[in-house]
């Protein structure tokens, strides 16, 4: 019964769009504005999240090796470490490489090394972990391996950083939740106004003996279309705005990591479409319900 009449409901919804063009346009404009605000926040938050990840990934464990370690033992140790859960990468740095690095770092001042005959630097393994939260645990395990002189991971910095990113993410989520909640309220109120404008029609339909679903469907479709069209508008506007903004930021700070892959931006688009369409549908459904109980 519902789907038999779908064509009719769609025609009714479109007709009402045409009958009150100005109202529909105002509605779409308002919803678009709200969705753009949500979208800007989402874009800021995925970029901050990328930024935090980037900082976190710079945390690494450095394992200094004993001087008497053999090549076989190094290989053995490397593979033992690599088999620990949560290890991303293990990189060997020989005594010679460490020396070269130091030379490079010292630059002009490299003369001070000439006083020392033998290379004093130990060979090391530089380890990157998948989840920075695991860094302490993994470092403690590695410390127990043989031929390991010392394990270093900048405990204090790591802890502070992880604390900071944790709080930052939580705060972001809270703000996001509030923003989404507010946008749901605002959009459903905008929809409510469009339904209110037609409360007489709803009342007459109901008194003529129309079933409540027959009355609701055109409004639901109209609400959906208003939400959906608004979300498409806001996505288009956000997209061009974002490309422009990324360009400007990169001109100012060339190496700042920003989300530019369209596939990474897609979830935001989907979220906006869902937010617009669902609130459009549910908002009109509840609003009509209010005027149905004549």
């Amino acid at each position, binding site marked *: 019964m519902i789907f038999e009449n779908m064509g009719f409901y769609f025609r009714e919804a479109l007709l009402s769009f045409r009958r009150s063009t100005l109202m529909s346009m105002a509605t779409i404009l308002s919803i678009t504005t709200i969705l753009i605000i949500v979208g800007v926040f989402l874009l800021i938050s995925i970029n901050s999240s990328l930024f935090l990840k980037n900082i976190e990934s710079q945390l690494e464990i450095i394992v200094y090796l004993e001087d008497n370690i053999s090549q076989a033992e190094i290989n053995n140790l490397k593979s033992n470490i690599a088999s620990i859960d949560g290890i991303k990468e293990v990189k060997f740095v020989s005594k010679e490489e460490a020396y070269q690095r130091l030379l490079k770092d010292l630059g002009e001042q490299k003369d001070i090394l000439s006083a020392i005959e033998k290379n004093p630097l130990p060979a090391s393994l530089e380890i990157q972990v998948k989840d920075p939260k695991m860094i302490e645990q993994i470092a403690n395990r590695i410390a127990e391996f043989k031929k390991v002189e010392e394990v270093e991971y900048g405990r204090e910095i790591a802890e502070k950083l992880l604390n900071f990113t944790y709080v930052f993410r939580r705060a972001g989520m809270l703000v996001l939740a509030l923003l989404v909640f507010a946008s749901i309220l605002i959009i459903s109120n905008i929809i409510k106004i469009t339904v209110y404008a037609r409360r007489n029609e709803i009342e007459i*339909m109901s008194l003529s003996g129309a079933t409540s679903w027959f009355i609701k469907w055109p409004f639901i479709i109209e609400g959906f279309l208003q939400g959906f069209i608004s979300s498409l508008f806001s996505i288009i506007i956000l997209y061009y705005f974002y490309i422009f903004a990324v360009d400007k930021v990169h001109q100012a700070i060339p190496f700042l990591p920003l989300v530019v892959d369209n596939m990474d931006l897609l979830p935001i688009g989907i979220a906006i479409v869902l937010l617009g369409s669902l609130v459009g549908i549910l908002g009109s459904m509840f609003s009509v319900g209010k005027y149905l109980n004549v």
Partner: protein
Amino acid sequence: MIRMFHVYKNYPNKIQALRDINIHIKKGEFVFLVGPTGAGKSTFLKLIYRGIVPTKGQVIVDGINIARLKSGYIPYLRRNIGIVFQDFKLLYNRTVYENVSFGLKAIGATNFEIRQQVNKVLNLVGLEHKRKIKPHLLSGGEQQKLCIARAIANEPLILLTDEPTGNLDPYTSWEIMKLLFHINIRGTTIIMASHDKLMIDKAKKRVVRLERGRIIEDTQRGTY
């Protein structure tokens, strides 16, 4: 067709709009519901189309107890009842034709049925030549006729009219009355709330008198 047993209606603000109403209205009857403003006439009519439910007592319409009617069945009750509202409830952004077709569309009538019925009732009330204009360009009497056309488009068993001649001159009022008698003769049960003394005395129909929510008189061929 309509029976009420010990019906009471209290509004949330503690007003007792109806008290101990007992009545039996047979199929095809024409009944005037008279009484001063605030007597409970509109409330009485609302009970019949289940715009409200009684606080106490039973209202039976065409064999259906409206207090126990599940909300899903209300639409089907209302398809048997035409209503002419005291405040018209016309859609002023739609044409005369659309005002009538609107209700038929709402109950899923086919385009053919809609065209046929709308033309028929607009002819009956004499508005066929004004089908394309908006209601605000109609006179009061014409708007009332449009309301009647809309109410009977679905050929209901019962027609409820709430003070349809309230604001009209005697000549136009009598025109409206004749229209209602005509509809009544074709078998539709009509209840008309009114305090239009002239029309009621002239009509010589059953008169049910309400005062402060009670029926104080019920006379066949009565006067105001």
